[in-house]
């Protein structure tokens, strides 16, 4: 099942307008996640307040949970060196290309298997 919603993937790369395209509170969520991962404490305080004011406490708590979860997931993936599961998919490859993900050093864990 899909929602048929048009989104702009560049929100993942930090584009606030892209994050807001098709995603409710997308700019606030993106900024919140970004400042947490960058360990920007001033930015985190500001984005926490902005998200709370825009979306409320429940969204803030759920967003904190998801962001914290992926601070864990990225470290599992990189510490174990796992490859991405579906490197043969054209859809997946198109997303990886659009986001220029091969610029990351950890891409080698996935690319080595298909070279």
């Amino acid at each position, binding site marked *: *099942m899909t*929602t048929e*919603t048009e*989104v702009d993937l560049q*929100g*993942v*790369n*930090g584009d606030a307008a892209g*994050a807001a395209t098709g*995603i*409710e*509170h*997308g700019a606030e*969520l*993106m900024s*919140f*996640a*970004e400042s*947490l*991962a*960058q*360990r920007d404490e001033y930015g*985190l305080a500001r984005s*926490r307040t902005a998200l709370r004011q825009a979306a*409320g*406490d*429940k*969204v*803030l*708590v*759920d*967003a*904190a*949970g*998801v*962001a*914290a*979860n*992926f*601070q*864990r*997931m*990225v*470290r*599992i*993936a*990189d*510490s*174990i*060196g*796992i*490859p*991405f*599961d579906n490197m043969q998919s054209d859809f997946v490859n198109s997303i990886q290309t659009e*986001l220029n*993900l*091969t610029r*990351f050093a*950890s891409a080698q*864990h996935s690319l080595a298997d298909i070279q």
Partner: protein
Amino acid sequence: MSHFDYSELEIAIREDIPATYAAYWQRLAAPGNWWTGTERVAIAQETRNALTCAFCAERKQALSPYGVAGKHDHSGVLDERVVDVVHRIITDQNRITQAFVDDNAANGLSKPAYVELVGIAVTVFSIDEFHRALGVPVEALPEPSVGEPSGYTPPNLVSDMGFVPTIPAEGATANEADLWQPGFAHNVVRALSLVPDAVRDWHKVAGAQYLSLPGMQNMVQDENRSINRMQMELLAGRVSSVNECFY
């Protein structure tokens, strides 16, 4: 002592979150498969020490992690090599290599012990990050329980991906039958399966912070969450991008 009491906070926290964290804290304090309770809690403490470690900050800026020499700021409980591994996982994880893991294994940090250590470090870190995200102080670490590690190794291991052996997708049987259902064995789920309890912790904490494994198949919105899947994936994607994680 009661852990994860959020009753005095200005914002309400879903009840399953403190319950999950408190249960994990109990498991953290107990002996694992390869580490004692004291060592497990010491690993947890090193995840916090890494964030203020001057050597880690210097190494993160270096072209190569091996281009600078120095000593970590740490609590003195764990061997320097173990401290280095915990700090790397927290502050410089995307430059961990097969050679790094193999070299540690050849010098006393076995791959099963490494996997258990990874599981502890990342879980404690994510719980701490939840607190930091909300502007809440981190929880005091638990008092370790006495006892010896079990030394349990699962059967059916393969070396078909990553830096360590894992249970293959079809290999979660017998004692490991609860690890995943057929069709739910993505690489990130299998990643820690050399230590099955680390996978179980993965499920439980992810289920509170993000979604349960079956819940991840719902691409629209979980009824117990205030944000939909697109909002979740935007958060996940931005955190992963800042961390330069390809996966």
